[in-house]
């Protein structure tokens, strides 16, 4: 938990290697598609920059021809674009790694800083390489008109401003903590999402770039003016440059807008593609586990789908196996690839209320039982695994700990005394005993006996002064070495977050089965599901108690889990409450559930 357990085999992380082939291919294809979209974005950005800077209204065709020559048919541009694309792939890889790797919670902040440092460095270097490459390319087109390689020229200005933008973007959006791609609330169509992303990011980046442009211009031009006039006898630039040459300011703003928008859009594009809806099917995972698909299979399956659609028939399962469709149990059983498991759980929950549920119950008896058992077992195994890990964190507090707790607990009401004798106030170092009474000689008596004491006192006085003047150091120290007592528990809760959606999906299938009259097929598993839900609830309540005991703070996953469990229990008890006798034999358990039913709103 406390250490990052990502074993790597070469440059490929362990979590990727352990995945089934089909999921690996799916992730790979998605990544390649996202990269393709990013390269298209690169060309769009370049076209915008060049059209705004180089397009001439008086000779439109000629200038367009020139622009095309400089972009599409230029070796220099193609090479630069290739380099930028490579940097972008690096950036995308790091973003995907952050997304898929298991979450980590560290007891000390310093551990987090140290462990996440390599990823932060990789992120920074990839962002910087993208920004430097982009600004280099754009600046070289600006210099086609004003050939000015002096420090006060546009080329240096745009290059340095590009770097400045990259660093500011990194600090603003990746500086503090590493963030995963967010789970989509609802899947929008690709075109709509891209248009929305474009419009929003360009608008916000345009606004965002205004202040850095002015700030950078105010710093850059005066300092360059000083350098040039003192070292190279160059032209006197400075504050006058901002007023006399607004074109340069505009170019800087445009570059900043484009770079910021590009970095934002690249991240969102990777998030959009990697978090696309998974095509989940009711099929046995064993039939898919060792199946290797290729582009030919995909094209052929697409053609088959088209034929089936024309004949108004559902696509046979045999063909579906050769698409990127995944059996639910296989998609959910990817414990090492956290981001993927979260998406699979969420998509399973979304599909459970749709056609997936009716498809499951309309399958032939053998397939239905096999698929339901696989699905139910996969989710309940996830729950058992979670409960086991929670158990190890929620050890019963020993007597010593309870004593410490009582000792630290201040009485709530002022009239009540504490159960334990209050501890003596901490004694300062200076007030500690400095030796036997016989050694305590008068202060003004100068001798070897009190020389040590004198020096000791002097050092303490200086140390105190130093300490008081530098209050930041202990604050930083306590910030980095402040012990998070619930780190292990928070780690387990965070790892269990896919259960929020998986359990809700399972409950949704159970509830729908009653509506569709397929209750008999799942009847024997209802007891198991209810027991699991109650056990999870119990562990979450214990976690809450532990939070109070250890005075820590539980992560947001706890709140999500407790809300989801409450919702699941409410649904299950509301739906199956009147039929408890049919599927439960344990009298005590039944009585417990009946009590719970009475407490429902």
């Amino acid at each position: 938990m406390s250490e990052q357990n990502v074993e790597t085999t070469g440059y490929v992380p362990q979590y990727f290697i352990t995945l089934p082939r089909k999921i690996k291919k799916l992730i790979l294809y998605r990544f390649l598609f996202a990269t393709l979209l990013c390269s298209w974005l690169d060309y769009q950005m370049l076209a915008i920059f060049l059209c705004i800077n180089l397009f001439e209204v008086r000779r439109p065709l000629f200038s367009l021809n020139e622009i095309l020559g400089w972009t599409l048919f230029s070796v220099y541009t193609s090479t630069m674009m290739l380099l930028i694309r490579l940097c972008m792939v690096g950036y995308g890889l790091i973003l995907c790694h952050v997304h898929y790797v298991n979450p980590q919670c560290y007891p000390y902040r310093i551990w987090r800083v140290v462990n996440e440092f390599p990823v932060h460095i990789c992120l920074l270097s990839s962002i910087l390489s993208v920004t430097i490459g982009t600004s280099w390319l754009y600046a070289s087109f600006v210099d086609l008109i004003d050939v000015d390689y002096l420090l006060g020229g546009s080329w240096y200005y745009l290059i340095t401003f590009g770097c400045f933008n990259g660093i500011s973007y990194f600090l603003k959006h990746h500086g503090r903590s590493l963030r995963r791609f967010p789970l989509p609330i609802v899947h929008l169509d690709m075109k709509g999402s891209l248009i929305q992303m474009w419009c929003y990011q360009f608008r916000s980046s345009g606004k965002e770039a205004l202040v850095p442009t002015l700030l950078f211009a105010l710093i850059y031009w005066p300092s360059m003016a000083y350098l040039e006039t003192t070292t190279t006898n160059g032209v006197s630039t400075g504050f006058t440059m901002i007023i006399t040459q607004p074109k340069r300011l505009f170019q800087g703003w445009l570059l900043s807008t484009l770079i910021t928008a590009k970095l934002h859009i690249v991240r969102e594009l990777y998030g959009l593609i990697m978090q696309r809806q998974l095509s989940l099917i009711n099929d046995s995972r064993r039939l898919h586990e060792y199946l290797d698909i290729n582009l030919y299979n995909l094209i052929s399956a697409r053609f088959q789908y088209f034929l089936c659609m024309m004949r108004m028939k559902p696509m046979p399962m045999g063909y579906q196996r050769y698409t990127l469709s995944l059996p639910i149990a296989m998609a959910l059983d990817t414990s090492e690839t956290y981001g993927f498991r979260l998406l699979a759980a969420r998509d399973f929950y979304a599909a459970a209320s749709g056609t997936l549920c009716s498809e499951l119950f309309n399958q032939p008896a053998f397939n239905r039982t096999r698929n339901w058992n696989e699905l139910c077992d996969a989710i309940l195994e996830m729950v058992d695994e979670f409960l086991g890990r929670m158990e190890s964190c929620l050890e019963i507090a020993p007597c010593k700990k309870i004593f410490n707790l009582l000792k630290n607990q201040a009485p709530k009401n002022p009239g009540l005394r504490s159960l334990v004798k209050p501890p003596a106030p901490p004694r300062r170092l200076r007030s500690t005993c400095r030796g036997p009474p016989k050694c305590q000689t008068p202060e003004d008596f100068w001798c070897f006996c009190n020389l040590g004491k004198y020096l000791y006192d002097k050092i303490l006085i200086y140390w105190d002064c130093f300490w008081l003047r530098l209050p930041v150091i202990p604050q930083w120290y306590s910030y980095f070495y402040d012990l998070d007592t619930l780190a292990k528990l928070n780690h387990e809760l965070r790892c269990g977050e896919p259960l929020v959606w998986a359990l809700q999906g399972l409950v949704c299938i159970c509830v729908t089965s009653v509506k569709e009259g397929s209750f008999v097929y799942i009847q024997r598993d209802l007891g198991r599901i209810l027991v699991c839900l109650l056990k999870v609830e119990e562990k979450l309540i214990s976690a809450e108690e532990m939070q109070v005991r250890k005075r820590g703070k539980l992560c947001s996953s706890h709140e999500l889990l407790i809300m989801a469990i409450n919702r699941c229990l409410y649904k299950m008890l509301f739906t199956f409450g009147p039929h408890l006798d049919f599927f439960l034999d344990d009298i005590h358990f039944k009585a417990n559930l009946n009590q719970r039913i009475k407490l429902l709103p």
Partner: protein
Amino acid sequence: MDELNREDLEPRRFNNVNNPDLRRQIWKLLRTLASNYWEWFLRKVTQLKSLCFRPICNLKLSLSSNPVSLDRISQTRGWKTAAIRCIEFHPSSMLMALLTNQDIVLLYDERSCAPTNLQSFQQKDITCAAFRPWSLSRELAVGCAAGICLWRESERSKMDLKIRHLLGNHHMRILQDEGHSYVTSLQWNEDGTILISAALGSSHIILWETDCQQKIRLVPAPDSLSAFSLLRYSPNFQVLFCSSCQTGASFCQLNRSKWRSEQILKRSRIQTAVWTICSSYLLFVREGTTRIYSCTNDGEATVFLCPKPVWTLELLADLQDVTTCSGQQRHCGEPQTIAMDPLGLYMAVIFKEQSFVLLCLLVNARPSRLQLLPLEFIACDADGEQFPTCFAFGFSQKGNPQVRCLVIAFNKGHIQRYKITANSLQEAKSIHNIK
């Protein structure tokens, strides 16, 4: 031979160039071409303009968001002056919320005699409310001028009822978004994981995932800049009906994974709308008319596995003059709002000008047409001239979903309860003596 031909051709060409008809024709052709190009250019400019000002581009336009507009589009009759602005029932329990014009939410519970007051300085100009389904902590979303106030009962108050009124037993958090002011309508999804809201200040709707503190803006009508006044989720939670504040309405396919919008009704503003419980029909009334129309999705009419929904309209009833089954006849006029019984048997209507509520029986026996049978006129049983402002159907007996009631609020604050026990069409017909 070639030379001869050249000689023949040359004078002809010379003549052709000097021919005034030809020149006129060329001139005409050029003019036509130029005018066509100019028209094409103007069309493109218009397209670009409409593209730039589409709501999807998130350009901020000054939508009129103020209480005056709310009064015009609200489902509540006389929203500004009505003592009770909205009545909302919990979807699976007897919990009822009354929204007063003092911006207080009164929460009635079968467990306690006195209502719980939910009030906050941020909660101004309240318009609508929606109980979160499947929530053990009885969460209530209230739409107001600032956004959405999400009230949640604390865990402690559930344990001990005695301390409910001594301590603040509800805590509130506010959901806000830029421009999303004066919330007009709220809907929760099937599981209570997503809250959907429309507001006067924005031309999009927002999906709030309240637990994860995420939100997404969606545009139901990409070509329209109007805000949305009414959201109605179909009971099977597959289609969301979004009625515009100006003209028209959209049907949006919105389940847990998909979103697709389609603008269907384009003429005039929709005054009120309600889904039948089978989710097959949407009953709606256009502003300024007395007719109730039904809109249904005829999926059979399309081909292929993923059919595009085809919506067909049909006139259901004209409420200009209504004669009930008992023979009583009254002039009704324009409907203000409609409500549907949770079992889908009854429907009630409040009119813009009348002081009574019309109760109807909805006959939905497929394959025959949907029918509306007027049953009775419910008048205020309190003294003085009072007119109904808002109403709602809800459950009135715990553990027995068959017993329902229609709660009607009148303009001076009088609340009237009309009990309904029929749980099938046959039973309802026998109760009201319909053959």
